[in-house]
């Protein structure tokens, strides 16, 4: 990121090594087993959705990938990096709540990562302006979070995550707090954005449709102890828009398969 110039969408640097790998990962918090023996493999620029009942350890897996947590046993590898610090440097993480800084306007919030890289406040703002434009937020640069709707705030939060220029994006139920209309809108928008600027993406959700819309593989987990039940490849026809895709028989079939897997998982 530091070496990047100009204000274009920070493209993922071509690093050697793959995407994200979890090898026999176990995470315990004291007596509780949060994740027991997870194996996952996601190629570079692949998109994975993880679904499961609450308490199945899906958020824990995300934290371990991001480098905010270390596994008790096993290996987590992100583009070849295994230490927490190196993983943190490669991953951007976005939780359900937007967590924007109320004292910074849209551009100021988006510029946070650049400022953290030691770039001056003024230059950081200038660099994110084009991103703001691309994210359909132009005209809102100087608005403060309290002046924005929930959907807009989440979009800014997403922008802030993207502006960090990380190759791996981790989403923890990013649209969970939004109403269904805004959520549908943002799902479509995120799909398009990721097609234009591909990243390695892991999305945690409890919404089966969202998992199918945004992932090309879906991992189903079960609770207590959290483990992986099945990995399903998503192969869907190209459609005009989200609504047509959801109506497609192939989509309905996959959704049904995932729902039945989830029933067993509960």
């Amino acid at each position, binding site marked *: *990121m530091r070496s990047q110039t100009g204000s274009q969408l920070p493209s993922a640097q071509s690093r050697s090594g793959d995407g994200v790998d979890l090898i026999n990962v176990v995470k315990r918090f004291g007596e509780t087993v949060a994740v027991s023996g997870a194996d996952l493999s996601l190629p570079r620029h692949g998109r994975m959705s993880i679904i499961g009942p609450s308490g199945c350890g899906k958020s824990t897996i995300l*934290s371990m990938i*991001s*480098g*905010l947590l270390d596994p008790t046993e096993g290996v987590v590898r992100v583009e070849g990096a295994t230490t927490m610090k190196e993983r*943190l*440097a490669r*991953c*951007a*993480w*976005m*939780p359900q*709540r937007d*967590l924007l*800084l*109320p*004292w910074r306007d849209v551009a100021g919030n988006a510029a*946070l*990562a650049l*400022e*953290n*890289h030691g770039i001056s406040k003024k230059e950081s703002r200038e660099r994110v302006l084009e991103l703001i434009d691309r994210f359909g937020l132009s005209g809102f640069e100087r608005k*403060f979070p*309290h*002046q924005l709707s929930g959907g807009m705030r989440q979009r800014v939060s997403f922008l*802030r*995550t993207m502006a*960090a220029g*990380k190759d791996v994006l*981790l989403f923890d139920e990013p649209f969970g707090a939004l109403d269904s209309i805004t959520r549908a809108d943002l799902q479509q928008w995120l799909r398009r954005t990721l097609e234009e600027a591909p990243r390695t993406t892991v999305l945690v959700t409890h919404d089966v449709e969202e998992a199918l819309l945004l992932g090309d593989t879906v991992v189903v987990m079960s609770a207590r102890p959290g483990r992986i039940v099945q990995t399903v490849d998503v192969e869907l026809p190209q459609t005009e828009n989200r609504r047509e895709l959801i109506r497609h028989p192939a989509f309905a079939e996959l959704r049904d398969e995932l729902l039945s897997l989830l029933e067993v998982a509960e």
Partner: protein
Amino acid sequence: MTLAETVRSSRTKAPTPGDRQARRQRRLAAVVKRILPPTGILLVVGVLWQVASDSFGVPKYILPSLSDIWTSASERWSDTFSSATWVTLQEVLIGFAFAIAVGVVIALALHLSATLRTAFMPLLIGSQAVPIVVIAPVLAIIFGYTLMPKVIVVALICFFSIVVNTMHGLSSVDPELIKVMRTLDASRWAILRRVEIPAALPSFFTGLRISATYASVGAVFGEFAGSLDGLGYVMIQATSQLQTDMVFVAIFILTFMSISLFLAVSIVERLVCPWARKEDRR
């Protein structure tokens, strides 16, 4: 639509002169609504006071009437109260500034180091158990009849609520936000500077407002213990000569000083963190 929403939505359109005038009127109405009740109550109390001291024949040395107090204030302003007010105001302001500086440094140090926190917290709490009434004369012995002992007493009284509130503000940042900042490559220093310190400002100002009301009491304590001028000194002199009206003048000036300091802190707070009130309104 609430008033706040109306104001906000009218801001997005180009303001017409009519809009601006209407907004000014609304703001004026809000100010009047704010000021009317306290002035009303003060007036009622004042009238009752005057009537009570006039018609019940209470001796002047027990309860002087408001007019007596006013007379002595205007007669003695130039030879006594002007210099006394100036002396006490200096003690209050310097002591308050001292408390802010020391309080913020302590709060930051204790926030950043768990070891320091466990080591110094008992001492800090203990410092509040020390009776100021006792410590003030000791300070007067050490420093003499100078400004110093009063400044120290004011600072001692004021710094604690600043430390406690600032620490609370620093540590009340959402832990998830800290995690987000870490994935945005923030160092410890960057988190402190870009998240924790701004987030702590509203609490810091709460601490300031609390201690602003104590500050003048601290100065009077300090002056009681030994002084040659100041409102506390005037009070002691006047009490021994049964000049109760003089005591009341000093009390009124002190009250005015406290309220002004409190308001000044509130105004600075509005300028420094305007987002705090807007977030609350959401």
